[in-house]
């Protein structure tokens, strides 16, 4: 099996960027499972529609770690809309190519990002819905507090 990682992939594997988790994230995306053997968790902090911070945790192979690392570097500072359109091929290109059987790692990283964004948007919707008078008071309080802290931090 040919498994020649580029120098950049190896660098990102050895020294991954944006590694770790974020307490009280605005969006959380978890992908993968133990059957396929890879797992990624992405944590987003969003401010004024822009991705202010992103971090990730990985249970995966070298390219799983490297693809997530490179992606977080790329999407930090993007608007949520821009990040939604981020393509896995950009990761592959950025790393100078990936072995064929490892392309799925980049696909999985993007899938995780989209899940985190979807989670962020769902929270936004819930928060604004709970602002409407029809909702119960208690829910409204909690949700809007979350919403505020997300926006102002």
């Amino acid at each position: 099996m040919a498994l020649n990682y580029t120098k950049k992939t190896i660098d990102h594997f050895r020294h991954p960027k944006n590694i770790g988790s974020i307490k009280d994230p605005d969006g959380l995306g978890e992908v993968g499972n133990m059957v396929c053997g890879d797992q990624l968790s992405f944590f987003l902090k969003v401010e004024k529609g822009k991705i202010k911070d992103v971090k990730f945790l990985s249970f995966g192979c070298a390219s799983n770690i490297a693809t997530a690392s490179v992606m977080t570097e790329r999407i930090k500072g993007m608007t949520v809309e821009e990040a939604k359109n981020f393509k896995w091929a950009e990761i592959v290109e950025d790393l100078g190519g990936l072995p064929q059987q490892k392309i799925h790692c980049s696909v999985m990283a993007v899938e995780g990002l989209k899940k985190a964004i979807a989670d962020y948007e769902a929270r936004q919707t819930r928060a604004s819905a709970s602002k409407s008078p029809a909702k119960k008071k208690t829910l409204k309080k909690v949700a809007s507090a979350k919403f505020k802290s997300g926006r102002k931090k």
Partner: protein
Amino acid sequence: MKVYLDNAATTPLDERVFLEMKPYFFKGFANASAIHYLGQKNNLELEAAREKAARLLGVEARGLVFTSGASEANNLILRGVMAANSDKGKHLIVSAIEHPCVYQVAKNLKAEGYEVDFAPVQSDGRIDLAALKKLLKPTTVLVSAMAVNNEIGTIQDLKAIATLAHARGAYFHSDIVQAVPWLKLDLEKSGVDLASLSAHKFYGPKGVGLAYIKQGIKIKPLIAGGEQENGLRAGTYNLPGIIGLASALELAYRDRTKTIGGIKALRDYLWQKIKKEIPKVKLNGSLAQRTPNNLNVMFHSIEGEAILIDLSLKGICVSTGSACSAHNLKTSYVLQALGLSLNDLNSNIRFSLGKHNTKAEIDYTVKCLKETVKRLRSFSPIK
């Protein structure tokens, strides 16, 4: 420091073996099937090598067929014996932890209409003999079970399996590629009717192996088009390779006691040190019923290939039979057969030691392994 702990994948050629082979690349190049004096001289050398290998394996020389390696030998035996014995039946049993060159052939035969069963193993990696007994039937032609597993090094009770197979009139085949020199092989006495071997696993050359087929067993060749090997394997004799195989086998058993003593001490030292210095680790397979060169360890909450690459960047060569490292992204069916939980299937590393390893190398390996495991665990989502 460079450390090679992947000796179950392949070993370097022993220089003494190379010196034995060398003349047959040059002056002794003649085709061993040729009638002229150069060919006939080589034919004698070929037959002497066959005699030597047969003596070391405890079989008759005329039962040996030289091949390109154990993969070819396994293909030849499974396909050849099943095809030539259809009068008895179409049932084949292979163990659930066979090497892909047996496992996949069995699956292919199943797709082609043969009846195939996979004999389960216990959690220690040994074949469940009671379950095997139940699978056997009058139409069973062949039972195939490897002597030593390539991933976890567990040793099977060849005699017990042979007895069960013979009781039902089935032949017993064993892939013995990982058994040299750890097991004293006396194949005929152990009831092994067919066997497969590769030279490069014991400091011999790559590209040469053998199939043992007991006299009287009907078998159909895979490669036709020449009368070599009594018509069972066409193709010009790989004389340097065959000489190398016999020489490596002889040296492996001559140095056996010394090799085993040294390697076992280092392997046990490696395991003790890993257990002591790294938390949340587990040994896969039985420690007692295992060859002295093998250690297969589960490192909880991190992925095997990440460990492998990180160690590789530090000069250490190990392997993982599991996880995404393979083309098909499937986890190890060997470890699955042992009953490992899904959470643990992708976290395993095989260390396979050889006669050139030193204590300093083991110390360096554990030092690096400790750092690697700590680093990867620091950002694992699994606790």
